[in-house]
């Protein structure tokens, strides 16, 4: 994988990050890569995994509601 093809991790959706991560794991396990490539792929893979875990660790759900043709924040009544 060419370094020039790397999108910044923060711009990826969960789905995109996961797909790239799966490719990296497969490539690393094939053991056909040079040591240099392996190391740089490993770093990219770790940063993707951290990003995905970070997305999942959000405490709050973003909830809005429709008001006419617009969206406004939704306030729950309880808790």
């Amino acid at each position, binding site marked *: 994988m060419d370094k020039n093809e790397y999108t910044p991790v923060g711009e990826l959706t969960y789905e995109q990050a996961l797909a790239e*991560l799966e490719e990296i794991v497969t490539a690393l396990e094939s053991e056909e890569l040079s040591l240099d490539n392996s190391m740089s792929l490993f770093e990219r893979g770790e940063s993707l995994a951290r990003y995905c875990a970070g997305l*999942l660790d959000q405490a709050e759900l973003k*909830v809005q509601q*429709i008001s006419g*043709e617009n969206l406004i924040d939704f306030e*729950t009544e309880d808790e």
Partner: protein
Amino acid sequence: MTQLTFFEPPIWSVTELTHHVHDLLASDDKLQDVWVQGEVSNFSRPTSGHLYFTMKDSACSLRCVMWKNAAMRQKFIPREGDNVEVHGSLNVYEAAGQYQLYADLIRPAGEGVLYREFVRLKARLEAEGLFAPERKRPIPRWPHRIGIVTSPTGAALRDILHTLTRRYPLVEVVLAPTQVQGDEAPAGIVTAIQALNRVVHPDVILVARGGGSIEDLWAFNDEGVARAIAASAAPVISGVGHETDFTIADFVSDLRAPTPTAAAELSTPDRADLLASLDDMSQRMGRAVQSVLNSQRWKLNRIESRLVLRSPQTRIHSDRQRLDDLARRVEAAFAHRLQVQRVHLTGLDAHLTALNPQSVLRRGYALVSLPDGRPVRSTSQVKPGDDLRIRVSDGQFAAQVRDASPDTRPSD
């Protein structure tokens, strides 16, 4: 007398008669699968769990019993004075000589009408193909936005939001609030579904309502609601009522969930599973890199050990040794040759010395030559009177031939 006997009616025992009545009732299929409508009275539910009551109308009454197992399954237990519809079979309680309705289902009166409507609409929409499995769209695996059609104040919304927060908090949620029962509900639900598709373009829509009676859920049997779900651009998951409730919305939706919570679960992946999978992938990467490192290290070790054998240091050392070796051999050989040469030369020297004309002359020999310088070797070269030059060891003089005589003996 015998004739009288002919017309005498048989005399039954009580049991025989009762059995006869029992058989009569049992043989009538209509009575074995019957719905009866009436008002409840004398309702009792003793500790045995069985239900005993009477159904009556203006003229007649009917004793009813529902056994405990059936009673526990009922969603509705009537009270004194309720107008109900009861399903069951009619037969005789023989010990008391009492016919009664053995009930297996009780519902409020009027539900029958609703149910018939439901069945009719369902058949019609099904014939149109609205429930066809081919129409049902898959639910996206990684939703970015989820639309919810439900009451803003009901338990259904609370349950859904809790579930989504627990499972997949990175999804965005948009609520389209609406009444979910009453006369305005169907129009409100339709508007909500359409607004979500128009304004939000969600990846999936949840249509949800908590549990209730058939009347409470009736809005979700509305034809307009069914058509709005069918026409929705986003796939719809319905989660209406309890596990056993099936509304028309459930048949037309892309996926039916038994409850609102289940609808939320079906719409997203589970965070716990995802985190475990991420962890697993990290470990696999670590192991793979470790493996690459190890094999590189092994290769390096091999190269290193071969290098040691063939290192420049080593080579220079061994080359140097070779050179020394060669030098020694050359020297040795050279010395030998010198020696040989020396011997040879000494021999030559002696030889030369012996052959030196001066040495010969010194021994008393003379070199005789003609006036033109030619040496005289034979008597045939001269005759008496010829001039000769004679060279001896320390000079030369002239001489003349007197007479010449060849040796008769052959010369050496």
